[in-house]
């Protein structure tokens, strides 16, 4: 019975795997806490900016002219796919990539180009030979506001210069600790704010300084930035949450496996002892007989 030593070896290897998954779970939990905080802290700004845009639209007369509102016939689409750099996070990446594939299949009427955020998306679409115009990797699972602004600036330039006619973001929304929703949301052009949806008896006689056009000129880039920051922070939080869950499950499974293997080991050990005893007894019997 060589299995005794083999079983022992397997127990040891599963135990060390378990230690690693346990450590990864705890690291992900710590990162999740921080990322979740970022999501929460980014919310007031986005909300207030939305409100301000609404008030601005309600207070200004006539059509709002800003390049970000311009809807053109779509000849080219840009899709920003936001996933993680690293794996071992359960179905986080495959979920969003599946969603993205479906979206791409449904939007075949125009040329498509991708901007990939996270190594996983880049590898995936490089293999599929989908044109990628920019890749942002090596985030280390941490939000970088400067880089988010750079991406937003690049996309805005591409849109306003007419190189692309529509930009969408594919990312995972962090709804709660146990709920992540994947989806593709439009980024540019921005939908014109609804005028007079009268939420709190909106004041419409605002003083604008200098003029509403100039405020729009400054506000719209901030608006686009904020959307990008929201998408990235939520994606990071979802990534850490998924990883924590995946690693938690792995740790649990490894624990069960160790239990089963220990049982098997003890059984084998007992069987061997019984066998040896039998041999001793029958040997003694033979001598006595």
């Amino acid at each position, binding site marked *: 019975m060589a299995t005794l030593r083999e079983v022992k070896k397997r127990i040891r290897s599963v135990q060390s795997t378990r230690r690693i998954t346990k450590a990864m779970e705890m690291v992900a939990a710590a990162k999740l806490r921080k990322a979740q905080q*970022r999501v929460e*802290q980014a919310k007031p700004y986005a909300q207030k900016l939305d409100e*301000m845009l609404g008030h601005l639209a309600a207070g200004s007369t006539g059509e709002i002219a800003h390049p970000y509102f311009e809807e053109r016939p779509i000849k080219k689409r840009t899709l920003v796919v936001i996933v993680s750099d690293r794996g071992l996070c359960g179905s986080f990446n495959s979920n969003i990539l599946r969603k993205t594939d479906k979206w791409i299949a449904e939007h075949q009427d125009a040329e498509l180009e991708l901007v990939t955020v996270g190594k996983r998306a880049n590898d995936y679409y490089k293999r599929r030979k989908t044109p990628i115009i920019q890749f942002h990797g090596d985030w280390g699972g941490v939000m970088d506001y400067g880089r988010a602004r750079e991406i937003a600036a690049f996309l805005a330039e591409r849109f306003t210069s007419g190189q692309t006619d529509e930009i969408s973001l594919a990312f995972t929304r962090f709804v709660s600790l146990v709920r992540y929703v994947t989806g593709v949301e439009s980024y540019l052009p921005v939908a014109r704010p609804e005028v007079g949806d009268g939420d709190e008896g909106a004041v419409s006689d605002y*003083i*604008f300084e*200098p003029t509403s056009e100039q405020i729009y000129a400054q506000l719209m880039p*901030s608006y686009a930035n904020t959307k990008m920051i929201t998408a990235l922070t939520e994606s990071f939080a979802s990534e850490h949450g998924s990883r924590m869950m995946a690693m938690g499950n792995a740790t649990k499974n490894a624990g069960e496996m160790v239990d089963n293997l220990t049982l098997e080991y003890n059984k084998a050990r007992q069987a061997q002892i019984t066998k040896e005893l039998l041999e001793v007894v029958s040997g003694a019997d033979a001598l006595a007989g």
Partner: protein
Amino acid sequence: MFRLSIVTPEKTFFDADVASLMVPGSEGYLGVLSNHAPLITALKPGRIEYKDADNNPRFVAVSGGFLEVSGNVATLLADAAEDTEEIDVERARAAYDRAWELLKEAGKTAGRVDVKRARLAMERASNRIKIYEEKHR
């Protein structure tokens, strides 16, 4: 007294009642007191000054943003905001030098360098340095 909240994309920076507020509007500094008329304005890099409930003046460096005043609530959306104690003056000086180099470069080669961006970066950096130095004189 009116409510002032300063929020940045990263966090809610300040949220409490204040007695007065002074902000760098895009057309120049402007003051806000209680019962101000509804107003929306763009901000440029500069110094926010507000007096808290005990009338102590406070200063905040801001790198552009927007201010909305309506119904005794002032909401200030700042691109970035720092207390005078929080300013990383070394970083600001480095950013200033970098922008300066870029602008010098632009003068030589004409184009290629994003002049507008460099100029804005320089404005933000010099604002931080100015506010820091006012405080630490």
